[in-house]
């Protein structure tokens, strides 16, 4: 489409005057993704045809990605149903929600998607996804302190997964590691529904003194508009508007050069310079540049302040001098921020930028009135009311219809499938399940992420939640978990969203956190498909209701539509992040059983109730390729009492370990808790689960609202009394075996930890290559010999993205974020030119 526009370009740009005098000139609005009546509305607003630059701007800002035109009517439930929250300093509609955690401190966190770019160019797509969410956090005035990455791929055995996964993982690591942000958790999920549409979501959290909270309003006529950071290039132009409405087909190979390329070093300098500017009190307003680039940042900052703005576009530092004005406005070059500063502070701002080696350029000023006027070499190319781009976009209440196959799908229950019965069959099933791609050990992935940098990581993957120390003096900290289950949501989007919320909430509680806020990334197919729209509406309703029941609120998030290849949409995949508070991180509870002080081990309890719930389970999928029935029942009242019990038990020191039950059921939890620190466990099946296939049900059911805890002897009476007080069912099911080295289910099987470990850890290295380790010292000579012949490739790029100057600059685009009352926030697809990725630390 960019090409179409270029072909119509003339030697001098399309100016406002020219637009006024050539009302009949044909414009490529349809190619830009605008409908006929949307185009007419632009003409009505301007009382003339838009210039080429204006048309580009409207098409971007009114795209699904930026305007939330299909999701807005549903997302407002997040605000309407939200309980009052005095901690919330900034919420939906801002770059990220900000939650106060002490008298002096606040945290801000949000999850976003970067799905489409990551399919086209896995390394850079994932890398710039991290970069984008980190800038959102930075724009709130916070220092980013960690990232998490919920990732979903196609079938683990599929050849294309071997292309996508290693690139995505290296990209998440390459960018986050180079920014110095610990990666503290996430998900790695495989399902064929994501084969053509991997989901690469990225979450970031930051911390700020409450009085450093930043605004995006461009207030104060005469204040200067400063562009900070990287130069502007031709990357990602048009991607947001056009490709946000496109699905993948055979042409995506040609789009590769247009995916934005990240420069994490520049972003690191941008972070440090912005923080220094905040602390010096030099910033009136700030907005990051992501999807829709300058267009979005200029219109949003001006609209937020109901101010006008005057911009001299030729002042924007360019990577490619031949760029046209509309290209400069649409560019998604990465690592840029827009600042509003008082004129008398400009010199100080430039000095700090110079200290960090970051480019800072005054490109405009805030004006009275309500027009955004942009000139390019004395030609007026834009003259619009900024609010018309931000707030007056189209809103659709799209048709919705329950998928026709849903009744049949839900009738096809996994509870009727043949089950393994008897010790041998159960043992074999256990070993098969813990080695399956979704349940196996993810060290192959997480070893590529720095979890230690900044020195405040108290828990990280594979723990249930990431736990960060915020205040070194008091021990105040946060726990974060991010979860989703597309299969559950496919079977029941309303309860599937609630189940995702319940799991993240539970994971935070398990680690010892009190849940206080929610973020979400809603990954769905095309909103133009009524059945997808129904799934979306149901999921939003479920999440909003769930938050209301739990008494916590969504503070921000992101919607990603058009996740489909051809007619096949992904499973509806709401991914939910929950933030919890821990008064003293020293009380956090890890998942691993620990060597007990008592010779007979700690006592193991199962909290919650186990039902015959196998539909949508990992077992049904792995052993039968089955997806049908109804997902596990969700009881948020139970989740709440579970969380209360866990928080209190952690605080008083009743627990040496706690681990949530989810995919894979009880046995998965026991195996993970045992392998974590090499401490075995011996379990007695309750009477009612001993006959027939009931041992199987007990071990593999995915009933929600359950947690395994280890309680040191002497604490059991107080602990069970605490459970009783909260009406929480509990069962003493066994003991940890400090001296033992097996997971034993009495009367069924005993599997040595070594055998479990081998099964659990072998899968990803087998699929994606790379031995878990180099040979030990005895084989050192062989290693040394190999090394001397290996290319000493220090500084070699991991990925070099090819011809970046291709004219058909189409980045598959992307989403936006839930903006319930205004569409003033957006996601961050992103861009940058062809710099090799950093290879090492």
């Amino acid at each position, binding site marked *: 489409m960019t090409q179409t526009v270029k072909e119509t370009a003339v030697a001098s740009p399309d100016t406002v005057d020219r637009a006024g005098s050539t009302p009949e000139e044909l414009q490529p609005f349809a190619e830009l993704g605008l409908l006929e009546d949307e185009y007419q509305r632009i003409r009505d607003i301007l009382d003339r045809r838009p210039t080429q630059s204006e048309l580009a701007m409207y098409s971007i800002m009114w795209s699904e990605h930026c305007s939330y035109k299909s999701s807005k009517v549903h997302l407002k439930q997040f605000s309407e149903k939200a309980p009052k929250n005095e901690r919330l300093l900034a919420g939906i509609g801002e770059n990220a929600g900000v939650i106060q955690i002490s008298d002096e401190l606040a945290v801000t966190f949000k999850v976003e998607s970067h799905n489409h770019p990551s399919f086209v160019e896995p390394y850079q797509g994932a890398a710039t996804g991290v970069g984008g969410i980190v800038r959102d956090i930075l724009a709130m005035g916070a220092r980013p302190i960690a990232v998490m990455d919920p990732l979903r791929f196609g079938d683990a055995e599929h050849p294309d997964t071997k292309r996508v996964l290693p690139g995505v993982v*290296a990209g998440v*690591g*390459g960018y986050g*590691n*180079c*920014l*110095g942000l610990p990666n503290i958790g996430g998900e790695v999920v495989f399902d064929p529904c994501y084969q053509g549409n991997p989901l690469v979501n990225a979450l970031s959290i930051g911390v700020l003194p409450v009085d450093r909270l930043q605004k995006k309003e461009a207030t104060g006529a005469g204040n200067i508009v400063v562009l900070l950071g990287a130069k502007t290039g031709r990357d990602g132009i048009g991607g947001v508007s056009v490709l946000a409405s496109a699905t993948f087909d055979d042409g995506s190979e040609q789009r590769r050069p247009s995916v934005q390329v990240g*420069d*994490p*070093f*520049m972003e*690191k*300098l941008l972070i440090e310079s912005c923080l220094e500017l905040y602390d010096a009190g030099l910033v009136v307003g700030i907005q990051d540049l992501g999807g829709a680039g300058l267009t979005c940042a200029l219109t949003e900052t001006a609209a937020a302040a109901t101010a006008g703005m005057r911009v001299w576009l030729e002042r924007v530092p360019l990577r490619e001098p031949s760029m046209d004005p509309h290209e400069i406005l649409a560019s998604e070059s990465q690592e840029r921020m827009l600042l509003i500063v008082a004129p008398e502070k400009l010199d100080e701002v430039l000095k700090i930028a110079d200290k*960090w*080696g970051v480019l800072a350029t005054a490109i405009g000023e805030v004006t009275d009135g309500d027009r955004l006027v942009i000139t390019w070499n004395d030609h007026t190319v834009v003259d619009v009311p900024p609010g018309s781009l931000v707030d007056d976009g189209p809103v659709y209440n799209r048709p919705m219809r329950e998928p026709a196959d849903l009744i049949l799908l839900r009738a096809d229950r996994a509870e009727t499938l043949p089950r393994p019965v008897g010790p041998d069959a159960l043992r074999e099933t256990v070993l098969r399940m813990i080695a399956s791609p979704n349940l196996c050990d993810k060290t192959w992935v*997480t*070893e*590529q*992420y*720095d*979890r*230690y*940098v*900044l*020195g*405040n*990581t*108290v828990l990280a993957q594979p723990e249930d939640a990431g736990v960060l*120390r915020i205040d070194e003096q008091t021990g105040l900290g946060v726990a974060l978990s991010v979860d989703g289950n597309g299969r559950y949501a496919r079977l029941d989007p309303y309860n599937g969203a609630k189940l995702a919320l319940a799991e993240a909430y539970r994971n935070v509680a398990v680690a010892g956190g009190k849940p206080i806020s929610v973020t979400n990334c809603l990954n769905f197919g095309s909103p133009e498909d009524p059945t997808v729209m129904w799934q979306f509406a149901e999921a939003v309703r479920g999440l909003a209701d769930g938050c209301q029941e739990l008494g916590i609120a969504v503070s921000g998030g992101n919607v990603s539509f058009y996740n489909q290849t051809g007619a096949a949409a992904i499973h509806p995949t709401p991914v939910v992040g929950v933030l919890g508070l821990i008064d003293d*991180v*020293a009380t956090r509870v890890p998942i691993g059983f620990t060597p007990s002080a008592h010779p007979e081990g700690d006592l193991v309890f199962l909290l919650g109730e186990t039902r015959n719930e196998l539909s949508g389970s990992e077992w049904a999928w792995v052993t039968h390729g089955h997806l049908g029935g109804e997902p596990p029942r969700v009881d948020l009242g139970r989740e709440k009492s579970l969380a209360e019990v866990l928080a209190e038990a952690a605080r008083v020191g009743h627990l040496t370990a706690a681990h949530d039950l989810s995919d894979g059921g009880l046995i998965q939890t026991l195996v993970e808790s045992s392998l974590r620190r090499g401490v075995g466990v011996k379990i007695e099946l309750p009477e009612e689960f001993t006959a027939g296939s009931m041992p199987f049900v007990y071990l593999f059911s995915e009933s929600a609202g359950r947690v395994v805890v280890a309680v040191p002897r002497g604490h059991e009476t107080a602990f069970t009394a605490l459970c009783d007080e909260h009406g929480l069912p509990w069962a003493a099911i066994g003991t940890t075996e400090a001296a033992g080295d097996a997971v034993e289910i009495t009367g069924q099987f005993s599997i040595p930890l070594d055998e479990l470990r081998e099964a659990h850890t072998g899968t990803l290295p087998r699929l994606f290559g*790379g*031995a878990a*380790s*180099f*040979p*030990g*010292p005895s084989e*050192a000579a062989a*290693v*040394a010999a*190999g*090394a*001397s012949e*290996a290319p*000493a*490739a*220090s*500084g*070699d790029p991991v990925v070099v993205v090819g011809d970046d100057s291709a004219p058909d600059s189409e980045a598959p685009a992307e989403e936006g974020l839930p903006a319930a009352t205004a569409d003033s926030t957006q996601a961050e697809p992103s861009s940058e030119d062809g*710099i*090799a990725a*950093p*290879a*090492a*630390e």
Partner: protein
Amino acid sequence: MRIGVVTFPGSLDDGDAARAVRLAGAEAVRLWHADPDLHGVDAVVLPGGFSYGDYLRCGAIARFSAAMESIIDAAKGGLPVLGICNGFQILCEAHLLPGALTRNQHLHFRNRDQWLKVESTSTAWTGTFTDGQEILIPVKNGEGCYVADQRTLDELEAEGRVVARYIRGNPNGSQRDIAAITNERGNVVGIMPHPEHAVEALTGPSLDGLGLFASVLAHLAGKSAAVPA
């Protein structure tokens, strides 16, 4: 005692190194890459990170910074200098240490808790360890594969300048499992794993990393009692 921690653009573990210095009982002095003044510090730590983005060879640009010019001179005069990860790479680029750190053999960034065996306790940074002591500290790098020509490796071995080796698995393919080396004088040490991430029970796999910082303080205390470096 005052121990300097240099911040280059792209340094990431500078805060962690400063914290480790404080926990060891010394004053951490932050040094800026563009400032040649070392502010009279008694020792210097070059922290981990990606200095100047490391888009060229790791450490290749940092080596020419104003602060490094001063540090190179001071190191030649006996100032204790510890290079961690990127700092080790910088020390090699500055030719204060021999050899080079190249891409991990498996080509992945790798972060894990790593066992090391301390093989030299006669450096400024390892005096409080015992010979052969096994310690657990995190390793995290993409270019941590130590390489040098055979003669250099043989010399390092013969002169007892291999300070620590990887045991129970070599995380990056380093020749002869080398994790840390020192210069002839023993005042400059480069180590690939991160001792500054093993200084608190709450956040690290052990407290073993503190030993390096405690060692340099003991070394400096001994030196102020007029023992030559």
